[in-house]
């Protein structure tokens, strides 16, 4: 039997005693997995339709539902895993490229988890961040190597003109997620949270929805290969412009928003007709080389009258350091490096799971390379790709980043349960969907509150750790690899990371 029914990835168990037949689970499942049998007066689930998003579980008022992995989906095999077998089946059926969403879920080493932080004991005091000043404000943009000052009796004047900067009250921004890949309510949530906290969100390459214009001061607009919605007004609408070359989840490839997702409002922001594919070419067709990148950077600077920082986002790949160096030398005011764990709305699985390098290593080599070349001050380094918690932020900054972008973590704050089915457009949590029935499930007021809470919580934790180290300004953490020690890392990895093994003193 060549053709077979696929095996359920999840099993939904419903406690019939607790089930009160309120049918909330039936009403809310966008995949139609739950149904009610009137004759039996019972609620059932078609397990194969369940994607494991846990929405019904979350909404069930009596905790009658538990979603579990199907333990025996495929006979256990360390090599021929259930995932591998299922994928082969799907491809045998369709002959197509496997799509997936969100970030790489493979058990590659997470270096963040192999690095530990330092704290003060005796020789210098820890600082109590709740009562003493603890500064984490960060500026993103090109800095001069030195400042020319004019000093006279008791007064100092600045002669050097500082390039435009982004001012971050927390060194965390929301990474590029287009309206289209996520819902407008999701975008609004992040925009409002960024405004509340004093940081930035990124439009992604989907253009600018009119409802987001009011958040311009906290917005980075992205210019990607598809140039959707890009015009001079768009470039000037935000506080900075980001040229997207690559993305951690899909280095080296383009993407496209299928025509059926190009609805009326999406068409308005992308400035393309309803129902046509929105194709983002793999390269920018005006950038075939580094000097072309410089050309685009300066075209944008000209169009925005040098009033906004212009940055470049790349995926972390093997030669990320020299590439970053080239980008800085091409005139970028900030470089964004997106690691192999970076998320996406849709990507070929083969790319997501296999291409790129972990962000931790990329930060270390890029920061080192820029310092070695004496150009570290010319651009800020923003890192992204699987930043999960405040300690990841701290470690990233200690390795040399100026700030981080979070995407997946922000979406999780909005409700995402990482079911990795964004590309289906049926997100029950109202995040990765344009279905008006589903979009409304994300109340942007709640979303903004939760996303802002996350940043607030991380900021507090960062301050806590800084205080523990006896540092009261984030400047003193940046590139301070002395505060990191490796645990269980090989010597060469330690060398790349520029840190000592745990146990070694200064």
């Amino acid at each position: 039997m060549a053709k077979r029914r696929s095996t359920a990835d999840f099993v939904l168990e419903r406690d019939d005693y607790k089930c009160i037949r309120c049918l909330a689970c039936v009403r809310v499942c966008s995949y139609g997995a739950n149904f009610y049998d009137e004759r039996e007066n019972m609620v059932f689930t078609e397990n194969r339709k369940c994607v494991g998003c846990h929405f019904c579980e979350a909404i069930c008022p009596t905790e009658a539902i538990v979603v579990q992995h199907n333990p025996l989906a495929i006979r256990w095999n360390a090599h021929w895993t259930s995932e591998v077998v299922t994928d082969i089946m799907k491809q045998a059926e369709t002959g197509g490229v496997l799509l997936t969403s969100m970030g790489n879920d493979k058990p590659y080493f997470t270096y963040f988890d192999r690095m530990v932080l330092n704290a003060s004991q005796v020789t210098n005091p820890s600082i109590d961040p709740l009562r003493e000043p603890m500064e984490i404000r960060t500026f993103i943009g090109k800095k001069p190597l030195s400042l020319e000052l004019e000093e006279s009796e008791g007064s100092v004047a600045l002669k050097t003109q500082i390039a435009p900067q982004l001012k971050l009250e927390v060194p965390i921004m929301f990474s590029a997620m287009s309206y289209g890949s996520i819902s407008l309510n999701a975008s609004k949530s992040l925009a409002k949270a960024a405004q509340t906290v004093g940081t930035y969100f990124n439009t992604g390459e989907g253009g600018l929805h009119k409802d987001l214009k009011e958040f311009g001061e906290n917005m980075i607009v992205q210019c990607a290969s598809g140039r959707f919605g890009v015009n001079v007004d768009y470039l000037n609408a935000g506080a900075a412009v980001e040229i997207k070359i690559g993305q951690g989840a899909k280095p080296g490839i383009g993407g496209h928003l299928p025509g059926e997702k190009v609805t009326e409002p999406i068409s308005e922001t992308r400035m393309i007709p309803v129902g046509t594919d929105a194709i983002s070419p793999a390269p920018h067709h005006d950038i075939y080389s580094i000097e072309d990148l410089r050309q685009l950077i300066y075209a944008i600077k000209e169009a925005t009258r040098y009033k906004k920082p212009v940055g470049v986002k790349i995926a972390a790949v093997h030669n990320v350091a020299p590439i970053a160096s080239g980008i800085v030398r091409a005139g970028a005011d900030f470089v964004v490096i997106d690691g192999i764990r970076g998320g996406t709305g849709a990507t070929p699985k083969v790319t997501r799971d296999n291409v790129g390098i972990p962000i931790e290593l990329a930060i270390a080599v890029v920061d080192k390379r820029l310092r070695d070349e004496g150009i570290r001050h010319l651009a800020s380094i923003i890192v992204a790709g699987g930043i999960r918690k405040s300690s990841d932020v701290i470690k990233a900054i200690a390795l040399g980043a100026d700030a981080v972008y979070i995407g997946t973590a922000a979406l999780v704050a909005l409700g995402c349960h990482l079911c990795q089915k964004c590309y289906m457009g049926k997100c029950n949590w109202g995040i990765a969907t344009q279905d008006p029935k589903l979009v409304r499930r994300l109340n942007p007021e709640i979303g903004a509150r939760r996303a802002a809470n996350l940043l607030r919580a991380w900021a507090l934790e960062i301050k806590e750790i800084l205080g523990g180290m006896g540092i009261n300004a984030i400047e003193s953490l940046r590139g301070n690899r002395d505060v990191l020690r490796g645990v269980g890392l090989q010597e060469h990895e330690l060398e790349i990371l520029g840190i000592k093994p745990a146990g070694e003193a200064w």
Partner: protein
Amino acid sequence: MYFNFTESPVPDRDFRVPSGCGVVGIMHQRRRLFSGETIIKSIALMRERGNGLGGGFAAYGIYPELKEYYAFHMLYDGTLEKKEAEDFLRERFEIVEDEAIPTRRVKEVKERHLLWRYFLLPKEEALIPFESEEDLVVDTVMHINAHIKGAFVMSSGKNMGIFKGVGYPEDIGNFYRLDEYKGYIWLAHNRFPTNSVGWWGGAHPFGLLDWAVVHNGEISSYGTNRRFLESFGYRCTLYTDTEVVAYLVDLFVRRFGYSPRTTAKIFSAPLWQEIERMPSEEKQVYTALRTVYGGALLNGPFAIIVANSEMMMGLNDRVKLRPLVAASMGDFLYIASEESAIRTVCPQPERVWSPKAGEPVIGELVREPEVQKIY
């Protein structure tokens, strides 16, 4: 550059030794020379602040006859190292005079090193790759300290010298016969390293050119500061957090020409909330200073006294985690960790004050007929 710690010749040089300490600085702002006895007395009062694993002094104005030459105080493990260093020095300098640094036998000080001093004149041809004479000297110091094993430059300025070693400072002072020297600025340091092994080179003051720094506390931002300095060509080889202070002072005051006060405001930058309250022009300056020189922000607890031939400055961290007291009496300016250390040598100063967190105490030489300046 990331250092390779396996190559270091002296085991205890491998580590940046966090330490608690006592500091004193005394300056006569009209260049009147006074004996080292004063500062020894002062630092000795704060014996409790040290543990006998490091003490040292910097003295300005001690070599008036040879003030045209760079005075190098060197520390050698042995004669082989001495020869190697001297060969290198000769490539770049004419050695005008050299001799062993006079010491006397003191039972508390267990001498481990060969101590030598040189008076050097840069060779014309050696200057070619450098922007200035000073850069040549800095490069020479960096080179010896980084690459000549068993040789260490304690000080390299004109008409000044640093005397330091493992022991309590009064013993070290006695050992170096400092009672026989006269200077117009004296710095002293009493060290309490948490590492059990003290190393002569790791004692304070730390010097470069005519800069000398004594430091109480710990620079928690050391890693960041070091990397900041690396982008300006400084190589931190000693792994004592104090050295970054010396290099940073050299960078901002000598190379950039900033005033000591502005430099202090980079080290102990105002809080953002203070900057927000400043008038717009000032705000712009301080925002720029923090934004551009964030890597030079000295974080963690510290009280430092830094001096050169022209001035002496005391500074502590932004939230005042280490003690610092200043006093003045006539042309004398005193800065110390404890008021008693001042009172013991100047019982009735005209003014005694504790500087605010991050506010420098700056004493500059008075050029007649100008009035002395104390900020």
